[in-house]
């Protein structure tokens, strides 16, 4: 017997909600505007700068000057003794930040490459904002490694060249793999950011005057949009989309091998590779939610391009990734717990009941409980501020996770007489410096390049239409390629 809303009033309400959900105008792809208007909106969002922007810009600039450049300069002048790293925790916040920023950088590739390969249409308006995250995140990761080096001016020793001291890099060392993998990822993701930017730079060139015209003209490289140019660009973007995915996986797997290749308690785990990758995606997707929320809240016209549907889709991904992270965390934990190694047992006990146990339990709550409790609900995950808050909490949780893996785990080793809890010193300022610089780069980018790939949005809108199926209209997508 058919269910009738006459007998079940809530069914009628649900049906109405269902109809509202399927209003095509709420989907960016089904709510097209003329390209000229969209161009104008994106250009206005770049050129409209309020006094609040400059206040935040000023504060961040001061923080970068003091906490990044001055603090780093001071550490270079005084030596690594001003940092908290010491026996037994020689790897402190610098490497926590390195792993954290590399993790953040994974979101860009995930959104842009994986979703492009799978033709997920919701990605279109925010691929660039996510790709920028990759480049800016990797800059901070690189800076954190150089901070950790201490004598940063000797970084060139990592490269093979004949020298009278017979100092040769060992290409069979995980640290060397790190250098090569991160270099590949930085260069690859920056090129991948630039290629789809070219048509939008040409658009900006056509609408600018003065120094901006010269700037856009130079970096648009003379792009006109000929059939040949589009073909070369499309081919290159396809190659990049497929090739950057294994590079992305390799980078964070290799970062995990920096730990796993050592025979330390808590680190010797075969599941660390995928556990690190899923952790990277966890923090990265959270960061994308934060960036999109800020963009939408602070930049003109962004509410047209970034809509509830995008937050909803990101929220779903965050929920799935959170489940994946919980799965790998438990895999790592149960095997170590079951193993019965004396030092590993001591370390696990230290995590759960030591002075940093608050961090351990906060990590579990914000990485698992919070997303699971909030993101199952469509309405909640479609609410920008709520999703951004969950993203922020996940990032706090993921930073804690790296802190637990690195300095907290280093406290416990097989020589109890060396046990000592790590307390960061100048690292705290340098951490503030890297975060400030990341935000500052975003602010600068938002004034210099179109953050929304307008041509990709228009291409998507051209491919979408409504199709009648039975009694209802459903969105359909044409495959142009």
């Amino acid at each position, binding site marked *: 017997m058919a269910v009738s809303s006459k007998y079940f009033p809530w069914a009628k309400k649900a049906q109405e909600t269902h109809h509202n959900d399927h209003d095509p105008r709420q989907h960016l792809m089904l709510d097209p505007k003329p390209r000229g208007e969209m161009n104008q909106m994106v250009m206005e969002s770049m050129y409209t700068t309020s006094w609040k922007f400059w206040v935040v810009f000023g504060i961040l600039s001061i923080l970068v000057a003091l906490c990044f450049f001055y603090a780093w300069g001071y550490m270079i002048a005084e030596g690594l003794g001003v940092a908290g790293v010491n026996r037994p925790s020689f790897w402190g916040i610098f490497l926590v930040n390195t792993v954290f920023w590399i993790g953040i950088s994974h979101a860009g590739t995930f959104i842009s490459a994986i979703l492009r390969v799978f033709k997920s249409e919701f990605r279109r308006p925010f691929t660039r904002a996510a790709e920028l995250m990759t480049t800016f995140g990797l800059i901070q990761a690189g800076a954190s490694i150089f901070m950790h080096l201490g004598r940063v001016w000797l970084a060139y020793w990592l490269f093979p060249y004949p020298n009278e001291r017979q100092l040769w890099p*060992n290409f069979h060392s995980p640290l060397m793999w790190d250098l090569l993998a991160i270099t590949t990822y930085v260069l*690859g993701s920056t090129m991948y950011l630039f290629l789809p930017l070219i048509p939008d730079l040409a658009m900006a060139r056509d609408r600018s005057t003065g120094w901006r015209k010269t700037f856009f003209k130079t970096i648009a490289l003379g792009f006109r949009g000929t*059939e040949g140019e589009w073909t070369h660009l499309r081919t290159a973007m396809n190659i990049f989309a497929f090739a950057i995915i294994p590079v992305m996986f*390799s980078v964070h797997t290799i970062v995990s091998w920096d730990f796993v290749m050592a025979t330390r308690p808590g680190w010797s785990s075969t599941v660390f590779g995928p556990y690190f990758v899923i952790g990277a995606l966890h923090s990265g997707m959270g960061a994308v939610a934060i960036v999109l929320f800020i963009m939408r809240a602070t930049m003109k016209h962004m509410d047209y391009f970034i809509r509830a549907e995008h937050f909803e889709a990101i929220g779903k991904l965050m929920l799935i990734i959170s489940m994946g992270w919980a799965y790998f965390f438990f895999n790592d934990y149960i095997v170590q717990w079951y193993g019965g190694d004396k030092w590993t047992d001591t370390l696990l006990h230290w995590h759960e009941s030591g002075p940093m146990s608050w961090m351990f339990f906060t990590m579990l709550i914000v990485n698992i409980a919070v997303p699971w409790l909030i993101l199952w609900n469509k309405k909640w995950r479609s609410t920008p501020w709520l999703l951004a808050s969950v993203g922020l909490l996940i990032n706090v949780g993921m930073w804690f996770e790296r802190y637990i893996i690195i300095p907290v785990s280093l406290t416990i080793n097989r020589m109890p007489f060396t046990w000592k809890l790590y307390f960061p010193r100048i690292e705290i300022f340098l951490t503030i410096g890297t975060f400030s610089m990341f935000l500052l780069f975003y602010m600068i980018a938002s004034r210099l390049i179109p953050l929304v790939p307008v041509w990709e949005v228009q291409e998507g809108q051209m491919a979408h239409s409504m199709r009648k199926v039975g009694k209802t209209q459903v969105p359909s997508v044409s495959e142009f*390629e």
Partner: protein
Amino acid sequence: MSETTLLALFEDIDPAADAIEKLHEMGVTDEQINVISGVPVMERMLGRPLQWTNVSRIALGGAVAGFLFGAFLNWGTPMLYNVPVGGQSTFPVPPGLILLFEMTMLFMLLATFLGVFLESYFPNYRPLEYVPEVSDGKIAIFFKCPQDEQEKFIEALSESGAESIGPAEARQL
């Protein structure tokens, strides 16, 4: 007989495709026609021949070069100098695979990027036929035709729905 280059601007793909068909009927070959657009319009939508690109071949070349460079780092450098690592042979395979992978990918991506530059002649700041309306989503078709038949072409393209038709001007971008 002197030739001139005309540029016609279209709002949408359909009239542009009709116009190209009409140009073909009037004896203009595909080689004499150029299309510029603000979004990638597939050749088959406009009834145009597929564009040739060497980007994937250049990428493949880069991958091979990267593989060879990775092999040099992996097996060449230990011959130049040997860094003994406990329990490992001088030429261990598993760490070598990591190096080979990273270098292959790096060189392939660099070659792909460079391929776009080479194939598209970027950067190119010389004056070229262009109209800024293209980045507003319009489609521009420019083609060579005999100067004394110019009016005939303008009339035919107007019938196809061209918004404007005129001599193509090379402009500084």
